[in-house]
């Protein structure tokens, strides 16, 4: 009998704490699959800051640390200095990266740090129970915008991939989505390229991953995928913003 599929060794056989329909599990698995395929599981160090995914180390079978809210890019900067030969990544949510941690992500990208950031954008604060995120859409109802996000008060959502792409130190920037099998496959290609950029030490690589939060969006997992597709993708267009020749 020929083995046609094996669950990646990058994921530990643990039941996750993530809600049903949450796409963290898919994002975790894509990263771990890429690392396993490249033989890098033993050579990788990950950083998971505050947010639902702070417990990613319970599931990812690699050396990992937690970090304070928003600070993962600074932590990864330090890890990179002590471990210059390893693969280093941060895995950050939107409240973490696009609100409290804007300083750290912008400057890590500006310095052209040799690590990869996976940015999970689900347009809401998940862990704390559904408050408005910097990426919440205009009119989106959250527990702190019961009538919908009012752009007169809160401004418009931040497009982080576009912002990061303006910095010369960031050499690979792509936005992907986990709303369909086709998009999941594209997401995996982007994850692979981002890791290759790091392997070749070309500069900072950034993958924004549009994700769902059915619990705090107040809908079931299938509806959540539809909501992402119909509402988030128009505001956050998918595609590559920057890619070095070496990994094209």
């Amino acid at each position, binding site marked *: 009998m020929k083995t046609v599929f094996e669950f990646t060794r990058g994921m530990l056989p643990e039941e996750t704490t993530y809600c049903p329909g949450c796409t963290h599990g898919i994002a975790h698995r894509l990263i771990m699959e890429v690392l396993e395929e490249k033989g890098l599981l033993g050579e990788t160090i990950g950083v998971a800051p505050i947010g639902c995914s702070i417990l990613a180390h319970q599931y990812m079978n690699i050396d990992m640390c*937690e970090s304070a809210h928003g600070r993962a890019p600074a932590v990864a900067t330090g890890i990179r200095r002590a471990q210059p030969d390893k693969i280093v990544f941060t895995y950050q949510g939107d409240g973490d990266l696009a609100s409290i941690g804007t*300083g750290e992500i912008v400057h890590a990208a500006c310095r052209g740090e040799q690590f990869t950031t996976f940015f999970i954008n689900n347009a809401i604060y998940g862990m704390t129970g559904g408050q408005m995120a910097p990426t919440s859409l205009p009119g989106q109802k959250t527990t702190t915008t019961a009538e919908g996000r009012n752009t007169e008060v809160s401004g418009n959502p931040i497009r982080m991939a576009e912002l990061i792409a303006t910095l010369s130190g960031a050499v690979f920037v792509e936005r992907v989505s986990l709303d369909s099998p086709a998009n999941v496959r594209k997401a995996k290609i982007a994850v692979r390229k981002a890791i290759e950029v790091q392997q070749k030490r070309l500069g900072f690589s950034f993958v924004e991953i549009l994700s769902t939060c059915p619990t705090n969006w107040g809908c079931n997992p299938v509806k959540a995928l539809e909501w992402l597709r119909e509402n988030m993708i128009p505001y956050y267009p998918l595609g590559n913003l920057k890619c070095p020749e070496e990994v094209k």
Partner: protein
Amino acid sequence: MSGKVLMKGNEAFAEAAIRSGCRYYFGYPITPQNEITEYMSRELPKVGGSFVQAESEIAAINMAYGCAVAGGKVFISSSSPGIALMQEGFSFLCSTEIPLVILNVSRGGPGVGSIQPGQADYYQATRGGGNGDYHLLVFAPSSIQEAVDLMPQAFQIAQEYRNPVMLLADGMLGQMMEPVVLFEPIPADRGEDIPGIKPWALTGTGEKRPHNVIKSLYLKPEELEVRILERHRKYEKAKKELVRYETVGLEDAEAVMVAYGSTARIAEEAIEILAEEGIKAGLIRPISLWPYPYEAFDSIPDSVKAVVSVELSMGQMLDDVKIGCRGRFPVSLSGRAGGILITPREIASNVRKALGVER
């Protein structure tokens, strides 16, 4: 051992860190400690180390955390308001038990305050400005030589205790020049030796061992309490092993001054002024501020009539002096604030007042 050299405090501190085997420094400009950051930017690359100018003190402490988590021997420095910004990180490093050496070249506060020397960070250093049950291990040198000699010990204690160690200096120590004898450099850890020296460090599993995890979040209260109790035992051990102080002339003293850092040197001059007037004054100089040398106060003879805490603040160490005295003696403050150095004559006057003999 090298010969005596004349060095500015801040540069001597930086050189001592490098000679202690430190190869990583993360800093953000702030007066009066900029010479350290500049020295590290210039000298660390020469010995194969790394310097990063961080975008903020918050980033600097988190870079330090990341580097130390990955096995690096890390030194950071800042001054009072910058140290305030790092408090979240100190709490985090204590919770995750990551070694680090921190230098605070303290200045006048609160707020932006002044850039002149101050000692008003005593609470921040010894009581913890961050959240939760934790302690930094804090030592206060009173000369550049003592700071230099404390540096390798600070790295050793940080590693042994897996806890950040703070050297609390002040703007005067940082900015003045003194002759100093530098110790022979201690070799830096080799990368391949890190997993053996620090088996907990994130060095990559090599798929040969279970993954290492450095964590601070414990959602189950019972698990968190176990971790806090473990650390508490460590702090109790520190109270037995790390207490350091010096005393001067306690035996036949009428009054005892208590002072740390450069202020202790001013207090020593006050002893001479008082002696000329026929008043015998002694001095307790705490070197470890946490754990605090409470036992030093037990050797104050009952005949002493007054104990005076001498500080460049409105009375912060005063609390520890009172704890140490256990109600045996009246305790008062001789302090200046705002970045003003206290003079020996002012201290002598305050001691006379405390004794009720001020004319």
